């Protein structure tokens, strides 16, 4: 019986496509796209590692024996360790309020949350200088009470929080809106306490979206340059983050060390891209960004 059905080759019966580019045009366009991306995107990335290793592995490793480099790495990790959890908690709270409840002015609120994305990094730093600087709004008061915000850790953390502010919220809001609240309502009517329902119902539903957005938020937090450069004061060994340390080394013509520190940041970017892509391939239906961007 089965022989009667199985040998039928459907591919032979399918007509040739009536619309589409010819093989030549196709190859040309693929060639143009790949050449452009290779020249414009991949080459700069490769250049970072090539330059970093241009004087051998020991010269590369020497860059990390510098106490200033180590303190820059420590500061970058500290800033990310404060800014990312802050934005994580904010993002979850904002998307809970916005996605699970109906109230007027919601679109406006989302626009305000998105605002930091459309502000230049330098302006993001500037606004904190205008607030906390010596001639700023609170400058006099801070000086009188001997509180240091600008050119110190708090300023760097604030500027970093500002530039990464929308990351988590903007991923979770559409995701939670799409999932609706019927599952949470069911949990509550079955007697689960509110926070318990959040932990056991909402959190598992948004876990991949949460991981995805935290990943991107962290990459930006560790790599932020413009905003942090304005508020940090560039004090070596004290307020220099890794990107700022790269700048100083580069301007001192210490290229090997500059590219060595930069290679750590580039590696972070690569890991971020790989994990992000894996999440998009495997869990695209549990992410908002996988479909919309």
């Amino acid at each position, binding site marked *: 019986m089965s022989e009667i059905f199985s040998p039928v080759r459907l591919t032979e019966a399918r007509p040739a496509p009536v619309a589409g580019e010819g093989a030549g045009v196709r190859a040309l366009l693929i060639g143009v796209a790949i050449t452009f991306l290779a020249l414009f995107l*991949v080459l700069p990335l490769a250049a970072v590692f090539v*330059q970093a290793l241009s004087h051998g592995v020991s010269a590369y490793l020497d860059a990390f024996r510098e106490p200033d480099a180590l303190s820059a790495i420590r500061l970058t990790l500290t800033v990310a360790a404060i800014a990312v959890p802050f934005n994580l908690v904010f993002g979850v709270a904002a998307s809970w309020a916005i996605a699970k*409840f109906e109230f007027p002015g919601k679109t406006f609120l989302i626009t305000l949350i998105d605002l930091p994305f459309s502000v230049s*990094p330098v302006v993001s730093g500037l*606004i904190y200088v205008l607030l906390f600087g010596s001639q700023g709004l609170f400058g006099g008061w801070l000086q009188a009470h001997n509180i240091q915000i600008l050119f110190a850790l708090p300023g760097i953390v604030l500027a970093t929080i*500002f530039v990464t502010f929308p990351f988590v919220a903007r991923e979770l809001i559409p995701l939670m809106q799409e999932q609706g609240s019927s599952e949470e309502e069911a949990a509550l009517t079955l007697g689960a306490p509110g926070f318990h329902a959040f932990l056991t119902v909402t959190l598992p539903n948004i876990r991949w979206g949460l991981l995805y957005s935290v990943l991107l938020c962290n990459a930006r937090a560790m790599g932020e*340059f413009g905003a942090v450069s304005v508020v940090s004061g560039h004090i070596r060994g004290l307020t220099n983050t890794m990107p700022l340390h790269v700048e100083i080394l580069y301007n001192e013509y210490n290229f090997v060390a500059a*590219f060595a520190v930069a290679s750590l940041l580039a590696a972070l970017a690569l890991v971020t891209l790989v994990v*992000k892509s894996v999440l998009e391939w495997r869990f695209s239906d549990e992410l908002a960004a996988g479909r919309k961007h």
Partner: protein
Amino acid sequence: MASTLAPADAGASPRPAWRFRRPSVLPGFGLSFGYTLACLGLVVLLPLAALVARASGLGFSGIWDVATDPRVASALKLSFGVSLLAALVASVFGFIVAWVLTRYTFPGRKIVDAAVDLPFALPTAVAGIALASLYAPDGLIGAPLDRLGIQVAYTPLGVFVAMTFVGLPFAVRTVQPLIAEIDKEIEEASATLGATRRATLLKVVLPPLIPAVLTGFALAFARGVGEYGSVIFIAGNLPYVSEIAPLLIVIKLSEFDYGGAAAIATIMLGISFLTLLAINLIQAWSRKRFGYV
């Protein structure tokens, strides 16, 4: 007794009291909404208000004086002019890349697709020093161009390269999902009715993609105008020649000219605001004309 009946009474009353939010069984609105507003207010709105306060202190004439200062005017002209050009080039190549990635299959397509996000993930300072070293007169790309008499690094052309780099992902990612959604049957109908491939592309495929292309262009433009880290290393920052507006803000701040910095920032924010407005108008028009954004 009366208390248990109270909710029913409220529902039956002819004019229910106005509520800010629609009733829901889910808990935590007050907490999450309040926390969202507090974070938004303290981190985003208060610092931005400091900028608005400083700028309004200068008044329109004060801002105009700063904007017409020859050095500031040439920096603004460079930032806006070059980022327009860069957005244009990013849109053209972005379209080709998006088309190739959605329409054709070739080995490594998924990796190429992931690589498009590289400028998002790579810290701007890292991209900046990598581009500067590649396009410097002794760099891998800069040396052959130098022999042809083209100097890229430390000229406006270098600014253009860096802005195209950061703008590219916006151009690709706004168009890509729409190309994926094109109904192939429409193209086939057009082809079977006798249209050439060229006519089908120009009259059937491209028109519905125009709004997305324009949105991607506007996003790439806005990003280019505000970009700092990836530009300053390759630009060389010669006043009147290759000095961008965000750098001038940093210079004004280092001279403690808070007013001048705030004025330039206000002009940049004003133009970004107009760009955002343009994006919204494009999307409103698209929704009316094509029924989607």
